[in-house]
């Protein structure tokens, strides 16, 4: 059994390389939507925050978690919506 730290680090390293490969191919014209879309993805912290905000304990950890849920949700909802709004405007020349 591999230790959890090694396993997580393994995932990290592979993901970084994958990220480089994926993003390198994005053309300059899409850099702004790419950035706001990536920003929405970084709201993934929400997933971590949810379990911390739902412990049912009325302690500091719970309040911090709830705050993180709100902030990360702004990131997720706002990020995806604004990216979609931008991408809807990109049109190819007709005819």
């Amino acid at each position: 059994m591999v230790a959890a730290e090694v396993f997580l680090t393994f995932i990290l390293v592979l993901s970084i390389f994958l990220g480089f490969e994926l993003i390198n191919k994005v053309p300059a014209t899409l850099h702004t939507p790419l950035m706001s879309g990536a920003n929405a993805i970084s709201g993934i912290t929400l997933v971590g925050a949810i379990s911390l905000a739902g412990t049912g304990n009325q302690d500091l950890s719970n309040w911090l978690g709830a705050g993180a849920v709100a902030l990360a949700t702004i990131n997720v909802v706002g990020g995806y919506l604004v990216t979609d709004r931008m991408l809807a405007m990109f049109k190819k020349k007709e005819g």
Partner: protein
Amino acid sequence: MDTLIQFAYVASGALFIFGLKQLGSPATARRGNMISSLGMLVAVVAALLDQGIIDYQWILIGIVVGGVIGGAAARMVQMTAMPEMVALFNGFGGMASLLVGWAALNPDAATFTLVTIILSILIGGVTFTGSMIAYGKLSEKIGSGAVLFNGQQVVNSLIVLGILGGAVMFCLEPANHMWLYLVIALSLVFGVMAVIPIGGADMPVVISLLNSYSGLAACAAGFAVNNNILIVAGALVGASGIILTQIMCKAMNRSLSNVLFSGFGSGKTETTAVEGEIKPITVEDAYYVLEAASSVAIIPGYGMAVAQAQHVVKELSVLLERNGAEVSFGIHPVAGRMPGHMNVLLAEADVPYDQLLEMDEINPRMETVDVAIVIGANDVVNPAARENEGSPIYGMPVINVDQARTVFVLKRSMASGFAGIENPLFYKDNTRMLFGDAKESIGGLVREFS
């Protein structure tokens, strides 16, 4: 159940990757964003099914509050204000990671977990205040110039030492909260200190970098709460931000450390004597030249965003095409205040994306262009970058508008650009200056045509 949740995370990670891949082409980008948001939905639902959750009340309140704010902001923001919007969102992401790291702290955590907790607090804190300062500069709520003072490097070094010391002590004595608070406070201060010396024109680099940090913070938080999907998604964002940062630095021919530490355009620029004289032109005369032109290139910059001129620019380009001219747009990678800023504005104005050419595409054909219209751009068309070795921007790749037969420069006044560098383009024989608000000048040209 737990295995099921973990598999849902795997699916969600795959959706993120596939979504980002589709973001690579304008034709599929919108679908890519949808796929990526589906991945997020899967991950959130899976997280909500976690058996460790006893009380949903605060989760729901958080999601509703965040969803309303995020949704409203996304709907109302103007396209010209995208850079500050992204900066703000970056900051929230950073703060969320800081809070998650903090909340994940428990007295019997292993050292490895403690290290990742302090990392997520540190990166999250720097991202938060750094983004807030970037937001302030971009929205011009605070001065957008570089703030430099004597001993800045010393102060920054002390802060870094303080953070390192605090972090080490925190890992040794996690029960003593003083170290935790020290690191939180210093990280927040460091975010401010890191962004204030960076001037307005370098903002594309800073925004990309903060974007990367927000991903890395999520990554660190993923280690802290032992969650794969945070690590995968955070690493993807981190990598994307780093690539954009690299592209921006390359487009300015500067190293990252030069951007971060030198306080560009802060008065140390040497003035070189520029020969020639400024030749202004009226809207009417400009119209006669444009009417005879068969090939026109439009080079927009941040000034077009400030003047909200993208819609009249589109109108003008349609009229020119109707008049038989071939119209293209030349976009410099660092035009505007964030990567791709100009592309979004022109897309908003319905300019088809295949009409927008990158610098490397438009430069070879510049000599065949009859009229190059420079709208609110300055440094990115400065021939000094090519010709004058003493210029602070020497070596930066620029759009060679001076090689066109005629150049119109739309400019408010003769004040120099954000970087404060003299631009010899304005004095060239083939350059005509069209002074005034860009929107009004172009509106005038549109009226002449119709």
